[in-house]
């Protein structure tokens, strides 16, 4: 029996499930778990003889076939050549708004995060944007973000084909209903119940009393994460890969 599935491995596996069916997924900077999830889907599809998945990892030489520079990702998105992307967020609110800039008042935010990156654009154009925030807490999942880097919903005068698809944390998985502009609790991870999620989520959402548990990866998938995926991650995320369970 191998070491039990870690919280991070469960999130990597869940990301691969959320990506099912995509042809092209891109992963931004500083996103080791989304990168791992995308690589896992590619490996699983390859193993099972399913459709090839194009994975574009920004910052990678090996796992990135763009030849047009960093702007090619954005051009791909605008043309509909990109099916999925990930956004983090220091704060995420119940309307799907994302804040990557900081807490308090702009511009002299007492806590400043790196910045909005490509979020204000990709959120409009990529059909499946997966919100990923490891920390599930009242300070990360808030009623209303202090700064809108990228809005969750838009009126019909603005071109929009993309937006939030799901929100994944270390404790739970939510889906997003774009019509209603609200999250729905889909499952809680092992070790968490719906009351834990209610107590640590700062916004209202549907299906509060959800009893579904997020499924764990099987042994074969887990060994794929600990073998091939861990090796593929090393190029861009040596520290993260080094901290993952695995041989050697």
């Amino acid at each position, binding site marked *: 029996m191998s070491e039990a599935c870690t919280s991070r491995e469960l999130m990597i596996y869940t990301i691969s499930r959320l990506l099912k069916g995509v042809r092209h997924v891109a992963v931004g900077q500083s996103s080791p778990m989304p990168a791992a999830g995308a690589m896992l889907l590619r490996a699983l599809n390859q193993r099972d003889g399913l459709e090839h998945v194009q994975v574009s990892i920004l*910052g990678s030489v090996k796992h990135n076939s763009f030849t047009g*520079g960093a702007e090619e990702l954005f051009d791909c998105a605008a043309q509909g050549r990109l099916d999925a992307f990930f956004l983090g967020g220091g704060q995420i609110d119940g309307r799907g708004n994302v804040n990557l800039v900081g807490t308090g008042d702009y511009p*002299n935010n007492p*806590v400043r995060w*790196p910045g*909005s990156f490509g979020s204000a654009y990709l959120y409009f154009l990529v059909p499946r944007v997966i919100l990923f925030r490891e920390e599930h807490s009242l300070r990360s999942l808030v009623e209303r973000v202090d700064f809108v*880097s*990228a809005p969750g919903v838009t009126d019909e*005068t603005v071109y929009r084909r993309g937006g939030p698809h799901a929100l994944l944390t270390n404790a739970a998985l939510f889906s997003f209903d774009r019509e209603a502009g609200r999250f729905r609790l889909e499952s809680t991870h092992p070790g968490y119940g719906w009351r834990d999620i209610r107590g640590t989520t700062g916004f209202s959402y549907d299906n509060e009393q959800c009893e579904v548990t997020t499924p764990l990866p099987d042994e074969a998938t887990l060994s794929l994460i600990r073998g091939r995926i861990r090796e593929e991650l090393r190029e861009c995320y040596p520290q993260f890969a080094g901290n993952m369970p695995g041989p050697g």
Partner: protein
Amino acid sequence: MTDFVTPREMAEMIPSGCKLGLAPDDYAAAPGLVRMLIDRGIRDLHVVCAPIGGMQVDMLIGAGAVATLETSAVSLGEAGGAPCFSRAVRDGSIRLRDATCPAVFAGLTAAEKGVPFMPIRGIIGSDVLEKRDDWKVTSNPFDDAEKIVVVSAIQPDIALFHAPEADRFGNVRLGRRRETMLLAHASKKAFVTVERISEVSLLDDEKMAAGVLPAIYVSAVAQLEKGGWPTGLYAEYPRDGQEIEKYARAARSPEGFQAYVRGLGSAA
């Protein structure tokens, strides 16, 4: 004509107060030359990150060299947040122009094409837009029902970056790093540090030529081996993660930052 100069001479050629375009860490950042800018006490820069900044930008801010910062993000990657940047935001010592990556590229593309602005999708409803007086919402001239953002052209006075190789004619190989090519096209001048200088023209090899920035854009070249260190140089060497961690720890305090930069100065 491209001038071939020493790195110190190049640092002297970049004036205080200029609009300086910089490439991202690990792609084509030039921290080696940036350290020399800090040594010579450069001030009042308007830094344009194309489209994000990292350690070299954080060092410039820590050294008090930046008046205005135009960027989509500043981060040290796996080493975490950029300490001098966060401090400068809190105490209001830099003027911030927060952006989103493709809007920076759109602004540079406008400058490249010599037009005053460029339309771009998305962004409407974002507070990033609210804070920018040089971005506007207009209607699509071909469809009044649609709103669209336009961003004004971004033309840096000088683009500064590090590349694997130049030839003695001033052509510079960038390979796939075409956002750096865009930055050079958009800027009035490009100053480039390189790992090595080729005696044969980089344009002679058709397989390479499309990834070469022609000398017509390149004002000066200086050979500076490991000029991308401790960040990486795309497809040449990875970042030195330990050194960047060391910087991240030191720069948590202004005193630690000063000690780190002085240490580099005496080692160079």
